[in-house]
């Protein structure tokens, strides 16, 4: 949303410039998430309590130990794989959106990137045991 809000000041200099601008902005968002807490709910409305006093949904679903292993495994992945995993699994981008973000030529190429990253991630998680 912040990216879209800044579109008013964006000057289109060449074909594909808008796409490149959006891609860079979204990749920066993904990288910020990689650096921060990936288990934190996104765009959480600020009522008085986030997560209350209970475990997060993710912890509840898979247990805290698995969440930590997941995070550590993602940290060990190459940057491109991290972006594919977070973009598809956490941000729930469609393959078409992911293709723009990852700079892939087609949604199929983005899907292939996701499946490869998942395979590597599962191996990392297993070896992190």
């Amino acid at each position, binding site marked *: 949303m912040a990216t879209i809000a800044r579109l008013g000041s964006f000057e289109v200099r060449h074909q594909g410039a808008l796409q490149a601008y959006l891609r860079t902005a979204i990749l920066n968002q993904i990288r910020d998430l990689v650096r921060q807490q990936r288990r934190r*709910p996104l765009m959480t*409305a600020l009522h008085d309590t*986030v997560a209350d*006093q*209970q475990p997060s*949904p993710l912890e509840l*679903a898979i247990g805290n130990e698995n969440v930590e292993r997941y995070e550590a495994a993602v940290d060990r992945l190459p940057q491109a794989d991290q972006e594919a995993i977070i973009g598809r699994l*956490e941000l729930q981008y469609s393959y078409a959106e992911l293709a723009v973000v990852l700079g892939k030529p087609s949604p199929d190429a983005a899907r292939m990137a996701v499946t490869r990253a998942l*395979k590597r991630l599962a191996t990392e998680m297993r070896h992190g045991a």
Partner: protein
Amino acid sequence: MAPDDVLAQAIDGIADGADVNWRLLQGRARSDDERAELRWLQVLGRIANVHRSTHDEFDGDASPTTVAAPAGPAADTLENWGRYRLVRKLGAGSFGSVYCAWDPQLERNIAIKILHEHVADDRLRQRLLREGRALAKVQHANVVQVFGVEADGNRVGLCMELVSGETIAGVLRSHGLLSHREAAVVGEDVCRALAAVHAAGYVHRDVKAQNVMRDKAGKIVLMDFGTGHDAAGGDRRPRDLVGTPAYMAPEVLEGQPASVQSDIYAVGVLIYHLVTGQYPVEGGTLLDLIDAHKSGRRRALLERRPDLPMTFAHVVSRALAPNPAERWPSAGAMLEALGGLRDGARSADTFSWVRTALRGTALVAGGTIGLIALGMVNSRYFNVALGRETFTAEGPGDWLYWGAVSLVAPVVLVLMVLIGVSVLRVGLRVLLRLWPRGVTIVSALTDTVRRFGLDDVETVSACALVASAAVLAGACWFLLPDLAILLELINPNVSTAPVETLAYLSPRFSGRHENYRLSFEWASIILVALWWVPFRMAALQGQRLSGGMQTAAAAILLLTILLLDFPYRLLYQAELDAVEWRGRRCYVLGERNADYLVFCPDLEPPRNRVVKKDASDLEHVATKMNPFGHASISPTERP
């Protein structure tokens, strides 16, 4: 990928968000390696499902909701819990409910927090046990008392003191904002509770208005230790974001572990909220809030409530310092500071007349001494310039008079600046109302000020110091010829000074005198305006300028006043008794015993002579005249 490649099927299912039959795939796995890999893929599938369900929540709901754990079954009702009879449900969450229960053995009501039946997670049981252990170690009147942790079947429950009353949040809703005294009392009790909690080695992590109860007797009780953790770090997960965002310290939002200082920050937010109804840092989402902290978008307490006492604002502001090292070092220290406010107010009520009398006496005494000192400097210059130190008999009374005279101009200047600033502020407010676009410009200017760090009191003070030194140096440089002459006049005095130097004192050069005064008057106005900014900022932020800055400001202002005033008497009030001595016009500078000291402009230096009062060649002229208006010391050439 081969159709019977179970790993590929699992990966495709996860990537596409499709349902995966894990049991079937596990059955088809050809090796232990494949089965182990599938297990981890299953974990990834569940991660993807959680995020998908989160996004479905946002997509399907116009107003984003708090992401919470799945709600328990609607019909999770209990009537008994071991020996306790559950009277009524006080509240329910996703994992458990709190009941008012009757203990038939001790014949009293208690509160029991019971996990839902469907929640079989061992970690949650451990969490409840942890809460119980934490509370059991803290025995304090302001901390909810725990009686024990009990299991009934496969459920676990925490038995606690039943606090009958309402939360401070409820008090705020029903009664409106608290006065600063009431808020300070609440803050004191919460600090007492936290001091006990911290002393037991725990950190609360969720101090907020909803977790502070006021019972029917008015006692404040800190509740809900479910988010607390062992400060020694036993089960600490630094990246756990637990608590209430508006109350979270900036370092906790950044991922640092909670600490004593973050609990103190939360108390600061609590008190701030109680007197304003708002929060020091606000944001529509968690990311907004983090961004607001990073870019320093916070509202000082005195900005929202300028009517609050500065001492109170200072206590709260220190608790809210972005740097944990700058906050109160402990809950006890903050408690003492809040108690000091109350004691100050109480003693003020009881002995206010004594305090007023003492303050008044100190003010009068200090002011008198200051005026005398100022008058002494003024008179000293005048007497040295005329060479009449041993022929005058000025005392404290005279110095007081000359000091008061010297202060008239600076006081008028300060008042002019304050009035001017007030008029400007009113004018700006009116302008912004009539011109809405101006608000945008002002906001942009404010952001620019913050970006350059000019919202920091010390930075602005340093800028004011440099600017005022530049102004003073500039004024001195501009008036260097006049300053040189004025200094030459006291080296040693008018008796031996060249005629050209004496001419500066004549009325022919009154224009230069006025120019001198105007220049230092404007310099004074600019300096007062410059220093008004950091003092005002400090007042709004509940701070004070450092001692060094206050001293520097006072020194610069004092020097400017002295430069403005010290030649005043010589230039404007040198009217002396005129006499005729040996056919020459002379002027009486002073007297001592039977002698006069006279200044004779027509004589070759030394022009000062001692003459007997009863000398036959001395004749009094019945007028007071300016000795430097004499024709012989008003040459055509400028000095």
